């Protein structure tokens, strides 16, 4: 099994090597940066698809870094959830790297963009594949620091301000996580997650465990912008360049926030009823507050950012319900959201690229001049609003059914309400931006360049066929494996320690 598990460190080594090479070689040569960025991301995407196949064959892969057995050394783990997240992250990253070739022409210093982009990707992949708590923190910080710098990439007034706010809140979240790790280390005297789960199971529930759960909830709540901790997101996500907004909203808050939280809460500490209730409550709150704040917005990207809060609420609600169906729905919605929210941010970037504005009131009738952008953003809007054949519908349906089955009728009601309000909000976007009469001053605009069109079309295609993932034969290899990884709870420990 050693040969097949050699694949795991590549998920970190390739983007890191790409980043170092980009920064070393392409300060003068923009095309080299493009090639390195695209090359690294496409290799990673193919490897992530391979990893799905490997998980299907072996069900769990474990790699010991430096040949040290856990808990002495660090292990990397690849199970269903890991490969699911890897596919999500690397798919979106590859398409966004494609999009950036043209879009980032408008900015100076392309090499530092690609370097930071690849470092952020390395950080996210590192968080996903690791099986060690402190290592998770280190890679989380890589991704976070790269994202702070990327938010300020345009170096305009409001971008710097948003970046400062984001950086401060993000590092407070990180410090809470670090304090939680310190408490856990003092309590269990180990850092390996599987080993830690074993020790915690022996000791049972105590005040310390509750305290640690609260610290992690606050820390990862900051990272994933759940409602009481969401203040940075509506500033930071719109201020970044469009590909980075797509990356932040699409995958960063999920891999740093939701994935890490789920991994720790489900597999290390063990889910209990109070934590599950808190998760459901926070999810429902984010869902409703996010959508209400989004309705009044006229700035395209800011509106999308508020919808990110709302959609993250669906994911957390689904996972918090804790039944197999709920977790499946939550993870499926996570995948769908990363696809259609990235697409929407890329659309907003395309509109900004052509017209130079983000204000919905100034647009109108753009669909006639920009057919690709218009049609793909129609698909994405219908998808996020939950209209039948598109993927968003299926995942929301599963979450609502799961809430009803677990007799949380109120949460189901809030989910339906938020979905209706989302539809209303996106009807507004379509009406003001793409339909209606073409404004006088937009007669000269052109459709965006080829690579941008290509990545938007591919994402729209995934939105269309994404619903097929719930078919029993398909979900057996992809989604079911991921939800099984969470459902096994603290048995994670015995699975891993026996797999060595």
């Amino acid at each position, binding site marked *: 099994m050693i040969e097949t598990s050699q694949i795991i460190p590549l998920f970190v080594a390739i983007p890191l090597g790409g980043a170092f090479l980009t920064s070393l070689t392409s300060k003068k040569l923009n095309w080299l940066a493009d090639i390195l960025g695209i090359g690294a991301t496409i290799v990673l995407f193919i490897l992530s698809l391979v990893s799905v196949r490997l998980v299907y064959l072996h069900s769990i892969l474990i790699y010991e870094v430096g040949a040290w057995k856990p808990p002495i050394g660090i292990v990397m783990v690849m199970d269903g959830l890991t490969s699911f997240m890897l596919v999500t992250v690397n798919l979106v990253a590859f398409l966004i790297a494609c999009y950036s070739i043209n879009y980032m022409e408008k900015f100076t210093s392309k090499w530092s963009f690609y370097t930071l982009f690849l470092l952020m990707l390395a950080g996210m992949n590192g968080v996903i594949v690791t099986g060690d708590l*402190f290592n998770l923190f280190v890679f989380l*910080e890589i991704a976070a620091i790269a994202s*702070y710098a990327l938010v*300020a990439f345009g170096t305009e*007034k409001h971008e710097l301000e948003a970046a400062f706010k984001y950086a401060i809140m993000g*590092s*407070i979240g990180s410090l809470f996580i670090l*304090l939680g790790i*310190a408490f856990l280390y003092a309590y269990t005297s180990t850092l390996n997650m599987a080993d830690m789960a074993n020790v915690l199971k022996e000791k049972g529930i105590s005040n310390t465990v509750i305290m640690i759960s609260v610290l992690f909830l606050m820390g990862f709540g900051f990272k994933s912008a759940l409602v009481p901790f969401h203040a940075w997101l509506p500033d930071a996500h719109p201020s970044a360049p469009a590909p980075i907004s797509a990356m932040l909203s699409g995958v960063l808050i999920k891999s740093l926030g939701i994935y890490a939280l789920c991994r720790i809460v489900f597999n290390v500490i063990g889910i209990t009823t109070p934590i599950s209730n808190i998760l459901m409550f926070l999810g429902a709150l984010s869902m409703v507050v996010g959508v209400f704040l989004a309705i009044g917005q006229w700035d395209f990207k800011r509106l999308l950012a508020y919808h990110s809060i709302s959609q993250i609420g669906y994911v957390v609600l689904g996972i918090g319900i804790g039944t197999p169906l709920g977790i499946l729905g939550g993870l499926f919605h996570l995948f769908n959201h990363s696809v259609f929210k990235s697409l929407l941010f890329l659309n907003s970037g395309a509109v900004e690229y052509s017209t130079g504005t983000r204000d919905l009131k100034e647009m109108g009738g753009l669909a006639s001049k920009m057919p690709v952008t218009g049609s793909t953003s129609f698909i994405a809007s219908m998808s996020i609003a939950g209209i039948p054949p598109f993927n968003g519908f299926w995942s929301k349906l599963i979450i609502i059914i799961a809430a009803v089955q677990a007799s949380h009728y109120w949460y189901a009601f809030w989910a339906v309400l938020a979905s209706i309000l989302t539809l209303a909000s996106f009807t507004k976007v379509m009406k003001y931006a793409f339909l209606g009469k073409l404004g006088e001053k937009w007669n000269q605009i052109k459709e965006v360049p080829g690579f941008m069109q290509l990545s938007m079309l591919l994402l729209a295609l995934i939105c269309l066929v994404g619903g097929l993932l719930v078919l029993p034969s398909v979900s057996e290899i992809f989604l079911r494996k991921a939800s099984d990884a969470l459902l096994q709870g603290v048995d994670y420990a015995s699975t891993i320690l026996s797999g060595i």
Partner: protein
Amino acid sequence: MIPYLLCLILFCEGLYCVLRKRNLIKIIIGVMIMDYAVNLFFVLIAYKMNGRAPILSPDTTIMNMVDPLPHALVLTSIVIGLATTALFIAIAIRIYQKYGTYDITKIKELKG
């Protein structure tokens, strides 16, 4: 017990500074103080009564040493703190260039 408590008070002091102060440099200082407190907490939980520093020497064989693992973690965490501080300072100086002040109440351009 008492060192743990004092260390947490230091952490809360930093948190108070971040929540309360309205000056960019003061906020950075608050984050630095929180960082110090967490690092101190790691080293406190590693301490062993009458232990030695975890460095072996050829002539003695005393094994009553403090826990070396948190020291390694703190080394990493100090570097992370330095990196974030440097980034904060760069952003703060750029904000000063744009607005001419470090006062956060005067530079609120973003709404909501």
